[in-house]
């Protein structure tokens, strides 16, 4: 099959050049032209036409590999106060990555007063409160517990908060929506430890507290801890990194990032929420009627196209693959649709499986760009039926200035010259 023209094997399924996702399975997007040959002349050294890397021995082994130096620009973007370098956030460069797993070193960060340097031999986890027996666990002890590995996203509740601004910020997918990352986490179900402490029937909540200079603390419903919460010790196969909570963090899949308390030192079972500062002042969303939701834990269904996106330039008309990320705090992504004409028509994207609950799912859609203006949108639907809202509908729910849990449809305007703008649609 030729990739160079609009053949009759291409099935247009929506306006603006969107093609059926079946295209991807047929390999129609793969570029041709591999295997360009050269013929060495007999009188010349054999390697005359070979790349340098084939003619000199390569570099040595390394104890811990690093990304290609050609791609050293793939970095988190950091936003911290000038006088408070450990207070703020860094964002995952979503537009520079593919697949569904975020490299640990590019996982977004949100710290409230820096990263503590914790000696794992001195660190303990204490479980107390409304339990039958309060227990202290050393890290060595926890390492002997049966573990689980699961793939889950973590998203800051403040992710995409800039989208409430009156004018669309000209920023990258990561700059706008990069307080989102996805990892394979390995650790111990919280329920395993609570089975050992026993639970007082009066317990309905649990306070989780970190050992950082903010003493980060959040209340978590006990049902969540018995359902799928984890004491995470490893991320993408390696010990969890300092900026992600070394030596251990709480993982509450699908709930707002702030609740996944890093540098975890204490779990206290309680009869109600503790009403800590963050859950009281920040994560209780003020609605139009002046009342605040207490508490909106789950992260809503959401998607964003990462390729093409702001900061990239189209390289001529022809066939492209639209690629992006979709996720939901409620479960699996059921469907992602893309539009190339501002929402007048939609095509179903291919989901790159496995499609896992509370995890990032990569979606792809073939697209033939005719060279003119095109407004690219993506719209995700989760397995419970919730659909990503349009921005106006999202804004209408909340009081002015509220920007947590933003999950509305994102729009990229591809212009006739091939440049790409962030717009509201």
């Amino acid at each position: 099959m030729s990739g160079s023209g609009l053949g009759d094997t291409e099935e247009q399924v929506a306006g603006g050049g969107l093609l059926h996702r079946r295209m991807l399975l047929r390999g129609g997007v793969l570029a041709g032209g591999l295997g360009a040959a050269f013929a060495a002349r007999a009188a010349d050294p054999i390697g005359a036409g070979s790349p340098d890397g084939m003619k000199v021995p390569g570099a040595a082994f390394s104890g811990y590999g690093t990304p290609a130096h050609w791609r050293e620009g793939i970095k988190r973007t950091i936003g911290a106060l000038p006088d408070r370098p450990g207070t703020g956030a860094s964002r995952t460069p979503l537009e520079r990555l593919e697949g569904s797993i975020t490299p640990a070193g590019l996982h977004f960060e949100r710290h409230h007063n820096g990263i503590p340097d914790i000696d794992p031999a001195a660190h303990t986890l204490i479980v107390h409160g409304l339990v039958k027996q309060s227990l202290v666990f050393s890290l060595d002890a926890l390492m002997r517990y049966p573990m689980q590995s699961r793939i889950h996203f973590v998203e800051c509740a403040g992710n995409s908060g800039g989208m409430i601004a009156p004018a669309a910020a000209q920023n990258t997918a990561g700059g706008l929506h990069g307080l989102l990352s996805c990892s394979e986490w390995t650790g111990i179900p919280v329920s395993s430890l609570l089975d050992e402490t026993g639970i007082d029937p009066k317990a309905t909540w649990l306070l989780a507290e970190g050992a950082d200079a903010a003493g980060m603390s959040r209340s978590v419903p006990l049902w969540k801890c018995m359902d799928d919460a984890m004491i995470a010790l490893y991320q993408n196969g390696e010990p969890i990194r300092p900026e992600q909570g070394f030596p251990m963090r709480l993982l509450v899949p699908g709930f707002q990032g702030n609740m996944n308390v890093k540098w975890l030192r204490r779990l206290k079972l309680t009869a109600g929420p503790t009403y800590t500062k963050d859950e009281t002042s920040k994560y209780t969303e003020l609605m139009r009627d002046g009342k605040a939701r207490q508490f909106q834990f789950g992260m809503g269904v959401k998607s964003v196209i990462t390729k093409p996106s702001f900061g990239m330039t189209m390289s001529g008309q022809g066939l492209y693959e639209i690629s992006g990320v979709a996720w939901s705090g409620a479960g699996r992504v059921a469907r992602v649709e893309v539009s190339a004409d501002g929402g007048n028509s939609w095509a179903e994207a291919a989901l790159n499986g496995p499609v896992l609950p509370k995890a990032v799912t990569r979606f792809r859609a073939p697209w033939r760009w005719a060279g003119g203006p095109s407004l690219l949108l993506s719209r995700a639907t989760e397995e419970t039926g919730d659909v990503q809202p349009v921005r106006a509908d999202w804004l209408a729910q909340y009081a002015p200035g509220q920007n947590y849990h933003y999950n509305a449809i994102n729009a990229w305007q591809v212009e006739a010259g091939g440049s790409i703008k962030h717009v509201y649609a």
Partner: protein
Amino acid sequence: MSTLRALVVAAALIGGAASAAETPHLGRPATPAEIQAVDISVPPDGSTLPKGSGTVAQGAVVFAQQCQVCHNAAGAGGPNDRLTGGVGSLTTDKPIKTVASFWPYATTVFDYVRRAMPWPAPQSLSNDDVYAVVAYLLSVDGIVPANARLDAKTLPLVKMPNREGFQSWADRYRPKTASR
């Protein structure tokens, strides 16, 4: 392991039911002193509040020395969070969320100041200082009188202006299959 137990464990593993796995029981009992040392969180009933007390007048001094550089005079905000004012603004076009206008419980102020403030030196104040700063902050909007003294008994009795301003959403995400 009996055949039956093996089957049960195997079924649990397939089903992903974490709590069915056998665990090694390697935790050691926590002593009362250990618990007291780490139990710094303060719920609305104030049950974990420490001894000590502080007055509005003492708090004004502590605030000027420790807090004002980040939170401005009387907690008016700038460069960091605004703490006071905004009472009654939540239903307007420009809602202002501050400690005074938004927070439902005064115990949260004590908990947070004690664990995390002042920012350059968290946990460097005395319990008396923290009671005093909380009393001062709440006095700015008249939530406590200018002659107030707060302690473990009086702090939980403070009625915050937005105490009734919340609607419960906590069980919004609870799956029907949740065990508790």
